[in-house]
């Protein structure tokens, strides 16, 4: 394979569930995790005689996203019916937008290994989600849960501007950060809020000629890791396939493949010949949407600082590295929390360390964002300030942080209760140090003697003092006194 020169061509279709209160065309709660078929009504169940009514908030969210993606906003759009039969689709058609999407022609800039690249956005449109089939046990039938039916779904389609699995992953991450910053979606991938479908093919150079492999679309990828793996797999598979069969874009057909995450392979689902005729036509139950420029301007005016720009600022102003800046900025609430805590007069360095350190660790353990830990900016700031002022040491800060998650006490109160306030009082520390030195004459001797053991012994004595003070001794003050007593 290594002897073949090729370019990878990838376009992405991304479906993102919008975080509106109600569904796309009815007033049912747009909420998941409830018992099956509890968030349903005649409209989303497709009962005879019902009519859809557009959710304006969903439209606004999509426009907000489109504006952040530098898209053109259509002045006039309509809704179309896309017909296919499937048990999770009670009307047997999906309301979507076909030839007049609500926005088109945008751009999103990504940064891969320090290189910036602009990915063109073909369109952003809205549609309704389908339900879920439950195949539980070998009972000879399946069950349908319609809670998700009619949930607002935003589809974003890129031009085929991505040229590696890594770029696709970075694009996905950038988009996820964007929609979170915009507050239009939680974009929690594990809960299926964001599903990715890459279209992949290769331009292979051989003997001065270019061969294009048939395009494959991998359906329904639920994580950025799966996206990256599926694309890498497809690249290798397409090369091997081309070498074996010689089939190209012109002689082959477009196919749809599924991703088997356990096996790490893509599996053929259907060839183009079997493709549906969706029989799109304008939905006569919905009126066309006429968008007023003033409304668009208002949304544009209220766009928050976008992740790309905020990341740069976080690196420049607060000294985060690229990765940490990206992690923090990915979630707008978390980035806001950081900045709010900072305005309370908190030392930047300490606060950065806390965010990258224990706060993100606790968030990750719970699979939520730092903001979702629910700790106020005030308490976060207090903790960082206590470290800055030398009231507690960094180790104690981590212990206090853990306690802060389970009670509402201020860090100061916790520190006192847990006896974690640093002892910086010289005479009190001297007493402890003298005791330690008296109990460890050998170590004291080694610490005085330059050589291999010296450094280790100083550390040992310091540790003994810390232990004896139950962690409350101010390590800086201790090493000063210790140094003086040993005579170094």
């Amino acid at each position: 394979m290594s002897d073949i020169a090729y370019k990878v061509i990838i376009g992405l279709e991304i479906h993102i569930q919008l975080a509106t209160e109600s569904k796309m065309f009815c007033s049912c709660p747009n909420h998941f995790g409830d018992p099956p078929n509890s968030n349903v009504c005649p409209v989303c169940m497709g009962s005879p005689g019902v009519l859809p009514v557009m959710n304006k908030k969903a439209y606004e969210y999509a426009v907000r996203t489109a504006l952040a993606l530098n898209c053109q906003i259509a002045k006039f759009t309509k809704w179309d019916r896309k017909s296919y039969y499937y048990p999770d689709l009670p009307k047997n058609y999906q309301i979507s937008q076909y030839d007049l999407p609500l926005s088109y022609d945008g751009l999103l800039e990504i940064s891969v290994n320090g290189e910036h690249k602009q990915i063109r956005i073909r369109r952003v449109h809205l549609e309704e989600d389908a339900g879920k089939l439950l195949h539980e046990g070998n009972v000879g039938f399946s069950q349908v849960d319609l809670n998700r039916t009619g949930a607002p779904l935003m589809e974003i389609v890129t031009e085929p501007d991505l040229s590696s699995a890594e770029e696709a992953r970075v694009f996905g991450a950038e988009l996820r950060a964007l929609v979170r910053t915009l507050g239009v979606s939680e974009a929690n991938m594990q809960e299926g809020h964001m599903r990715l479908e890459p279209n992949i093919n290769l331009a292979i150079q051989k003997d001065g000629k270019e061969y294009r492999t048939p395009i494959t679309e991998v359906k329904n990828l639920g994580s950025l890791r799966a996206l990256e793996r599926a694309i890498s797999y497809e690249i290798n598979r397409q090369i091997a396939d081309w070498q074996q069969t010689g089939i190209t874009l012109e002689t082959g057909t477009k196919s749809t493949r599924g991703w088997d995450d356990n096996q790490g392979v893509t599996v053929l689902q259907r060839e183009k010949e079997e493709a549906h005729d969706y029989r799109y036509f304008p939905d006569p139950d919905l009126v066309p949407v006429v968008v007023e420029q003033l409304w668009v301007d208002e949304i544009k005016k209220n766009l928050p600082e976008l992740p790309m720009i905020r990341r740069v600022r976080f690196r420049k102003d607060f000294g985060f590295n690229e990765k940490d800046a990206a992690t923090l900025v990915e979630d707008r609430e978390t980035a806001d929390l950081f900045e709010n805590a900072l305005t309370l007069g908190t030392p930047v360095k300490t606060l950065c360390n806390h965010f990258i350190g224990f706060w993100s660790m606790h968030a990750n353990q719970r699979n939520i964002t730092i903001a979702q830990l629910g700790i106020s900016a005030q308490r976060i700031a207090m903790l960082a300030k206590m470290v800055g002022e030398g009231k507690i040491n960094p180790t104690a800060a981590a212990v206090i942080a853990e306690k802060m998650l389970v009670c509402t006490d201020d860090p100061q109160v916790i520190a006192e209760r847990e006896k974690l306030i640093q002892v910086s009082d010289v005479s009190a520390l001297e007493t402890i140090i003298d005791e330690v030195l008296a109990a460890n004459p050998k170590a004291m001797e080694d610490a005085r003697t330059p050589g291999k053991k010296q450094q280790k012994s100083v550390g040992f004595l310091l540790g003994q003092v810390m232990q004896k003070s139950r962690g409350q001794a101010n390590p800086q003050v201790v090493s000063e006194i210790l140094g003086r007593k040993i005579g170094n």
Partner: protein
Amino acid sequence: MDRFLKCRECLQTKKMKNVIEDILKMTATELVKDIKTGKLTARQVVEFYLRQIERCDREMGAFISILDDHARTDADKIDSRIAAGENPGPLSGLPIAIKDNMCTDFAPTTCASKILIDYRPPYNAHVVEQLQKAGAIVIGKTNLDEFAMGSSTENSGIKITRNPWAPDRVPGGSSGGSGVAVAARMAPVSLGSDTGGSIRLPAAFCGICGLKPTYGRVSRYGLVAYGSSLDQIGPFGCDARDIALVLNTIAGYDHRDSTSVPLEHAADFTAAMEKPIAGLKIGIVKEYHAQGGIDPEITQAIEQAIKVFEQSGAKIIDVDLPHTDYAVACYYLVATAEASSNLARYDGVHYGYRTPNPTDYIDVYSSSRAEGFGDEVKRRIMLGTYVLSAGYYDAYYLKALKVRTLIKQDFDKVFEKVDVICAPVAPTPAFKIGEKVNDPLTMYLSDIFTISANLAGIPALAIPCGFTNNNLPIGLQLLGKHFDEETLLRTAWDYQKKTDFHRQIPEMVK
């Protein structure tokens, strides 16, 4: 049992017998007045119509569900409210029959289809809510061509409905049951739905009034869709005042129907119709009369009616609707395309009929639909599916939409010159049962004069204007400007004050 005795008792008293004679001839407007003033009780009125249903409907076949218990309970509630000095609303105690394609949570809604034979909706249609709020009593659900697809009610998957003027003839369709319910005085008023003439044709064939309101005037929420951009609910009644009475209640904006139109002022159609029609400009469509095949007796009756209008001071003007010839073709592309999509949901998966022994999940779909739908419904689903298929869409559906625009423009131009268009409802009176069943194209031509109003979205009213030599009713159609039902009702009422065709009752139901 108690209730049964009480009912017999109340119908058997001598006083009641006179009342019964009266009710048969009373209009809905008069009934409501008498109920409100205590001259009649809602219960007495309901008992009268239930008895009339019992007497006539075995032969007529107008009803799919007779809601006797429901109607009696509602009537007693209305009566106790009136006794307590309350005003239960503008339709206090008025029984109404409803076409069985409008959802009711208190009775099955079958659309006269095997596929929905036991279907009980989880909600009430907007019009049903409005009627109940106004004090009306739903007395039954009426027969129709399956999913409102047809012109004779012979396409019902349940039974045929007979014309009370000639039981060997059809009542027209698709709202045949609602037309017959009023014509046979089994209900004082009823609701139908009109996609291509489904209210006006039965009204004409049964000798009563029927209005298709402007598209957007009445919420379609809860009307089982056939052709969504054409469907509109409207009332049947004996005279124009009864139509106005019901329209007052069912018209108006409903946020659940995006195509219903918010108007600044709620219209009072009853108040508007007493104005005389002197000076009104009435258009006669040249193309309609150039069309061959209009029964001469119908032409004659229409000409007579025009004379009545002229005597009232209306001006008669010849007008052109040049795209009339394309209306039927255009309609059958638009309506079937929408129908093929609207009816996709009847699949045996979520509700309704499911084939008993499917081989796999695809078979659940294909066999449930093959066994559940009748021939005409299948014909239209297939035609509509074809119309929307890749490669045909532009040639058929898109072209039809363009033609539809031209037809609308025809009307816009005509209504710059006239206030109302006067036309026949149908080229023939009621035809014999079975006569056109095997010839769908001939059947489709029954709607040749009614279809254009649906394509243009304008209101159109059918009223009786005479009888043929063998005593079959003849219908006259008045078409108006968008949201100008008032002028239609005013014109009709003026005519009805000078004629008595609308007061005729078929011999067999007296």
